[in-house]
């Protein structure tokens, strides 16, 4: 039985002194976990009383024309939230860039990766690009969309940079793409004002299941995909510490 007060003899010095604290924090966290578990057990699994979700699932397709109901919610029902989310991501990326701007290069200089990784990175590039574009464009029909596809686009542009750090990453182009995508999103939102409110869906709902359906939602998702992709790629390149000198 270990005493929680740390009175074990000859164990007072150095990090051993903290044993009592560790035991106390583990006990506290265990108690907190039990309490949270008791609280959450009050929500019955599989039949939580949430009706708004079922209501939206029932009418989402008729109103937006998007097969993927999550997309319909993200862009049709709470498009303004999504604009805020993209803004948060932009703010985080800009703040990280500002914080790192004066940081100079990392301690370990990037060196050229091995032959296999370099070749594979360049071979992967077109496939990742196509996969990202596919996921973004089919965001209203199949799982996926602007955020997932944008992350894959960022990976597509970042992997070759990882393989050969000397290759340039053009921050100027990334910023241009990002700004243009944001502009498209806001312009579509403002165009919705003519039909009633900000971000009202335009262009009708189209044929069910067709690629060109769900009105302006796919356009919004493409804008989000480009914005997220360029933001994430720029962010990773900045943390990587390469290419920032020529921005």
């Amino acid at each position, binding site marked *: 039985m270990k005493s929680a007060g740390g009175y074990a003899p000859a164990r007072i010095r150095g990090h051993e002194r903290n044993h009592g*604290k*560790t035991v106390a*924090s*583990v006990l506290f*966290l*265990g108690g*907190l*976990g039990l309490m*949270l*578990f008791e609280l*959450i*057990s009050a*929500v*019955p*699994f*599989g*039949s*939580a009383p*949430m009706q*708004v*979700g*079922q209501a*939206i*699932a029932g009418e*989402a*397709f008729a109103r937006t024309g998007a*097969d*993927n*109901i*999550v997309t319909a*919610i*993200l862009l049709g029902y*709470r498009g303004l*939230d*999504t604009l805020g*989310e993209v803004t*948060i*991501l932009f*703010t*985080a*990326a800009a*703040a*990280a*860039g500002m*914080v*790192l701007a004066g*940081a*100079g290069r990392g301690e370990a200089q990037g060196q050229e990766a091995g032959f296999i990784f370099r070749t594979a990175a360049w071979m992967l590039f077109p496939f990742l690009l196509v996969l990202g574009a596919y996921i973004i464009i089919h965001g209203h029909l*199949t*799982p996926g969309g602007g*955020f997932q596809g944008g992350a894959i686009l960022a990976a597509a542009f970042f992997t070759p940079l990882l393989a050969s750090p000397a290759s340039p990453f053009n921050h100027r182009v990334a910023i241009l793409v990002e700004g243009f995508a944001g502009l498209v999103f806001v312009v579509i939102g403002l165009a919705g004002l003519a039909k009633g409110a900000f971000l009202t869906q335009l262009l009708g709902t189209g044929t*069910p*299941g067709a690629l060109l359906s769900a009105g302006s939602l796919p356009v919004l998702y493409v804008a989000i995909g480009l914005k*997220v992709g360029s933001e*994430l790629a720029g*962010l990773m390149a*900045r*943390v990587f510490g390469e290419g920032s000198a020529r921005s």
Partner: protein
Amino acid sequence: MTGTLLYGGAIGLVIIGLYAIVARRHLMRNIFGLAVMESGVNLLLASVGYRPGGHAPILVAGAAPGPLVDPIPQALVLTAIVIGFGVLALALALVVRVRQAYGTLDNRAVARRLRAENGEARS
């Protein structure tokens, strides 16, 4: 049974992350804790929306293939994952700068240095 497992897993993640934030001293470890905690909250949200026998909220050419799971928590979790990545990136950028400015990543040592600097500035 499944529900107990999922809720337990989610709360376990939150508690493990909280431990890393509260009890560990290295700033990188605190950020790991933040990421783990966020995963736990996401899992909790997603499992609250689950319905046994429900289909994924994807219609097939406009017709639901059967009862659907609740799509709203999924949209929320999608938002949370992306924002979590932004938070992680900002935290890591700050860690890089703290390392450069103070030469240490021990959160107590950094706090001491900050206190000392602020005290100097005030007196």
